[in-house]
């Protein structure tokens, strides 16, 4: 079964880059432009993993994370933080990894593969 990854980022370029990178490697992707939209999409799509930007218009990453961690169906979904902010590893301490932009695609793919296969 194809694993589904939700990409949450306000930057269109990053969304399409990640989407391409992950689908080239056999993952199905869905995208959201900010935390508010991402909650609705996550609930509907039940992704196997989420890549999450921190700084976004409307709803930021940490607030999105707090919302999904209260949702029984989503609370165990692994989250990879991908952000340009510094000190990001403290933003969502339970994230399985935190990557700073620009990141190595191979590194992300390894993290994703280790987490969901």
């Amino acid at each position, binding site marked *: 079964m194809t694993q589904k990854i939700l990409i949450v980022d306000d930057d269109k370029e990053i969304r399409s880059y990640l989407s391409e990178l992950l689908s080239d490697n056999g993952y199905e992707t869905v995208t959201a432009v900010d935390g508010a939209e991402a909650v609705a999409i996550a609930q509907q799509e039940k992704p196997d993993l989420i890549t999450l930007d921190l700084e976004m218009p409307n709803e930021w990453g940490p607030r999105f994370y707090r919302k999904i961690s209260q949702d029984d169906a989503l609370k*165990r979904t692994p989250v990879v933080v991908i952000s340009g902010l510094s000190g990001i*590893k*403290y933003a969502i*301490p*339970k994230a*399985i990894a935190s990557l700073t932009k620009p990141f190595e695609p191979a590194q992300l793919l390894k993290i994703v593969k280790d987490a969901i296969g």
Partner: protein
Amino acid sequence: MFRKILLATSGAPSTFGAARVAFDMAKRYGAEVIVFNVMGVPTKAFSQEVNDVRTGEKVEVDDEYRAWVEEELKNTFAKQIECVEFSKMVLTTGVPHREILRAAREEDVDLIVMGASSGESSAYRMGYTGSTLQRVAKAARCPVLTVHRETASYWGGFGNIVFATDFSKQADHAFKFALASARELECDLTLLHALDISGKVLDQNSIEDELIAARQRLRDMYVPLMGDFKNFDIEVWEGVPYVEIVKMARERSADLIVMAHHSRELDPEKARIGSTMEQVLMRAGCPVVSVSKPDKV
């Protein structure tokens, strides 16, 4: 998962909790319960006299005494014995821990169930585990389940298992048991590492760095072994380990805590039950099972 359960009991009220768990489990798994009682500790070599384990009085072990103890035990656990398909009673004399271990080995049991201490033997409630448990836990080849007090949660309707690890080799065996139980019972499994920061003065970043590193270590160590089992959470709480483990069990309304004992000291002669384990046993609101050896998991 469990075919034979050895319930080691003195027949005192402090073992009633353990008895309930043992019989509940047996009912659930169709397991056999061996109610095992050490009547007394011999006073002299080749003597017929023993010190009764409950009263401490000197008594002569004859058929009459044996029949009386058996009758007492049967009355105490009458209702529970009726509930399970197979149960038998074994009475013996000797040094309790040695006899329990001997019986466990001879009967090839999958689990030993016992109380953590003989309870309120003095003016205050005992704050440490009994010496029998200490010795049985150390040497038993099978998991040892202890129930210190009567609590609301019992094996039978399991929702959450907390597996507490210190990343030791013994904890690997405990993990196997925790995972197998969670699979069998189709319940949630919380993997917990309690980060010991007692006596240290750390700034917030160092604490968070250590928490992140410990979460990563838990993930690396145990997640690849999970296979298709998905109902697990990874948690690292900082503080005094036993407090955090008991707190987590309460927070999750856990029905079982799984831990390894004697993990710090590798030399079995020197090993004493871990102080964290001991405190968890005495304080947890649910049964605690300790696993250290790979034989029966």
